């Protein structure tokens, strides 16, 4: 990968069906773009997994596999950061209401680790309620300049 590519800004926008195939597709598209930023293999793993977890939330919990509802994926790469926006058309959620998955009583729960992992893997996570319905999650990974 050339340095010139990493210095270019680029955006990708896609409208995806509410299916698990879309989860795979979003992960692939995001990793292709993130790769151009020169992230390490470990960072790419973590970006890919964050996109997967976020897409699963949008498809499964947000749109509930509804064929009439779409997921919007927006990727933006600049020399400084890689930004992922994933928006669903679901009823929304308040991230403050989510139980802490590593707290004693919650540790052995089957689910509830997605947002926690995204926060652990990315540099920033924001959740925004959309009108009239839906949730947009923004994930940011900063590009560390190699010296």
């Amino acid at each position, binding site marked *: 990968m050339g340095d010139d590519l990493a210095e270019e800004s680029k955006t990708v926008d896609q409208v995806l069906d509410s299916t698990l195939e879309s989860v795979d597709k979003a992960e692939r598209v995001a990793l292709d773009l993130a790769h151009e930023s020169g992230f390490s293999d470990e960072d790419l793993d973590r970006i890919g997994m964050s996109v997967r977890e976020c897409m*699963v939330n949008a498809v499964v919990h947000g749109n509930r596999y509804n064929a009439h509802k779409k997921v919007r994926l927006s990727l933006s790469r600049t020399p400084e950061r890689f930004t992922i926006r994933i928006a669903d058309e679901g009823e929304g959620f308040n991230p403050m209401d989510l139980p802490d998955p590593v707290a004693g009583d919650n540790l052995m729960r*089957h689910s509830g680790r997605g947002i926690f992992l995204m926060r652990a893997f990315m540099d920033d996570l924001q959740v925004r309620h959309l009108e009239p319905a839906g949730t947009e999650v923004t994930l940011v990974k900063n590009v560390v300049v190699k010296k």
Partner: protein
Amino acid sequence: MSVKLTNRQVGDVTVIDVAGRITLGEGSSTLRDALRELVKQDHKKILLNLKEVTYIDSSGIGELVSAYTTITNQGGHLKLLSLTHRVKDLLQITKLYTVFDVHEDEAHAVRSFA
């Protein structure tokens, strides 16, 4: 590639060699069904070899946790063998690494069930 499971019997320990991806959908449901079937058949000592697991997501982690709880509640033991860096990393971040009995060596893991 989704997940592929191969069962072996080493003494009274059932070893499941897991290969591929344990993610929401086919991967996690295949693992869930296989473990439920073993519990139904009254297998009490189960060793999950995760050496060839290339990817696991939070759904896969959830399956491991559920299986551990179910098997433990029925008087059995579920242990993990040969975690990849990725799986180990995830279990550490989610603070589950110390919940599971994790082994690097199969013979040692099998003996630990005694």
